[in-house]
């Protein structure tokens, strides 16, 4: 479904269903160089179990038009504008990596619009190595390889996003290449990395979050290891932690455990 958000078309996956304002709404926000499809299993489950699902492609990514957000704050404004466009007063915000910072900032700035917050594969500060920042411009293909190796923890994942027979390392790379190519005007890889690296409001933002927060973390995550989320966890007003045995792409590497943690938290 395409919404017009901040004057540009914004693609939102809804599980094939129209928004019903009588239902609770879950917003899924992807990370750098990803799109809505990283949540395929979780979003289909939510869309068929009583929730409205708004899984967006961030502006400038994939099927969405507009300019890619250059900061966490800018992206968070797009998320709130999406809620306005969809006629949703309040939603659960579920973000992965870069998306987790976006969700947190949106919850901090608009606590009245956010019922629960889920930060998947998160860290603060979310520093990006100079080598990755440089390669995201000079050699994106190499940078994609580096990110993928650090984002997956196993050569033998269970049945995942596309079902049995899915090779996650290949799938993640193909998606990143597609998203990079989807925007010929901007390097969304570098823009996203810089936004993560430069975000410096983590602890103050978390202090402003009023709702319950779930930290859904991968015990084998090398990109955002669980210890790197500790400052946020300690700052959270009502924080819970769910640790699953997976790497940074835990939604696809441990889809069952990730879904179970989301269901348990979001049903409360």
């Amino acid at each position, binding site marked *: 479904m395409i919404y017009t958000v901040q004057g540009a078309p914004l693609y939102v996956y809804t599980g*094939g269903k129209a928004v019903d304002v009588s239902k609770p709404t879950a917003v899924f926000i992807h990370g750098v160089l990803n799109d809505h*499809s990283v949540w395929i299993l979780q979003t289909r489950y939510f869309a*068929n179990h009583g929730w409205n699902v708004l899984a967006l492609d961030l502006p400038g990514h994939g099927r969405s038009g507009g300019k890619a957000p250059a900061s966490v704050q800018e992206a968070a404004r797009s998320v709130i504008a999406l809620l306005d466009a969809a006629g949703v007063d309040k939603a659960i915000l579920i973000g992965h990596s870069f998306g987790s910072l976006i969700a947190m900032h949106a919850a901090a700035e608009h606590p009245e619009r956010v019922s629960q917050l889920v930060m998947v594969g998160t860290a603060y500060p979310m520093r990006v190595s100079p080598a990755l920042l440089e390669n995201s411009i000079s050699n994106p293909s190499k940078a994609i*390889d580096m990110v993928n*190796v650090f984002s997956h923890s196993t050569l*033998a994942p269970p049945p995942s996003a596309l079902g049995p027979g899915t090779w996650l390392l290949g*799938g993640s790379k*193909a998606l990143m290449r*597609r998203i990079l190519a989807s925007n010929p005007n901007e390097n969304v890889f570098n823009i996203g990395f810089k936004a993560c690296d430069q975000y410096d409001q983590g602890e103050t933002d978390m202090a402003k979050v009023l709702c319950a927060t779930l930290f859904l973390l991968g015990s084998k995550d090398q990109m955002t290891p669980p210890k790197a989320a500790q400052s946020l966890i300690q700052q959270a007003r009502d924080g819970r932690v769910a640790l699953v045995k997976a790497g940074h792409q835990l939604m696809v590497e441990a*889809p069952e455990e990730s879904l179970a943690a989301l269901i348990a938290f979001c049903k409360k």
Partner: protein
Amino acid sequence: MPGYSDPGFDTLALHAGAAPDPATGARAVPIHLTTSFVFESTDQAASLFNLERAGHVYSRISNPTNAVLEQRIAALEGGIGAIATASGQAALHLAITTLMGAGSHIVASSALYGGSHNLLHYTLRRFGIDTTFVKPGDLQAWRDAVQPNTKLFFGETVGNPGMDVLDLAAVSQIAHQAGVPLLVDATLTSPWLMKPLAHGADLVVHSATKFLSGHGTVIGGLVVDGGSFDWSGPHTQGKFEELTQAYAGFHNMVFTEESTVGAFLLRARREGLRDFGACMSPHTAWLILQGIETLPLRMARHVSNTEKVVSYLAAHAMVSRVGHPMLESHPSHALAKQLLPRGAGSVFSFDIRGTRQQGRAFIEALQVFSHLANVGDCRSLVIHPASTTHFRVDDETLKASGIGPGTVRLSIGLEDPDDLIDDLKRALKAAEKAAPAAGGAA
């Protein structure tokens, strides 16, 4: 996952898709010979059917042993996933029928395995899918053959048995300009010799019966998706409705919306395997996995043995032509050096000087080579294509495929190379002796 870079080919050949079995600790991949899998609850059952959860339901659609094989070949090819099928022919059929129906058109290389030619030229025409065949090296012919209803380009990495090397970069570029994907049959090269997806192909099929299995024991096929082709991209002009429009046969799913890069595999499994049913037995999958574990070692030996045999034949007085790209005389020599630096494979043909009777004498005198209809076995094989694999192909088409009435095809195995050469030497002598007396021969 160890290391700071992608695992190498040999590591993936052993480990991709497989971990010790969590239930038993078994290190080797268990063979899951079961038709179906117990649901934890009615809700879980519904979720599995509705693609809200990933898991196994019924072994025609997926099976844990097959899934390991599928992940492994996808890893080795650099793809996003794969589907195991009952045969290589089933893999080709699944790829085609996932993308098109009656009224569609394919542009294909004329240098194809006879079975693939039959499917395209005869059988699919009966179902309204038309194919134009072009010489694989004639790039203008590929361009000229495109029609508004063209949905696919298809060729073999290395043609069987002429060994024409497909110029993947050039042909894929023409395909993509036409808004269609390039599907290649990589059976004769295997990912150890070449990864077609890295050179521009979008989809790969294998007859896993051949080098992947490697032991001449099972029939099986694989389809691999590179995840590179944008089915709803601007060049496609809406021609892939099977993937971009709601499918009433599966929850009105729009596959390209569900998965940005995996739409093809989603539909192929949920429609093609479900409805056509050409699935692989888990026992077969296990045997192919056993083969893949030693693929790097075997392919290296296939290639080195082939180089010795080709050199021997090329210097023999009874041999008029050896069709292997390692020779400068082969039209694909330069392209093979570029695309196949490890070697162009071990299935090739050569022509014996003399009569058909001499050709028969050659084949009947062989003792180490087995006379049969297969390639890619660990044992060396020999066949006469014009009377067997390409029997239904007319002379003109045969010629276009680089096959003459007296052409002999060899598939070089893993025996001691000296024994192979001795066998060929003995058989060529027998052919020489079989020359007609009136011709002045002894």
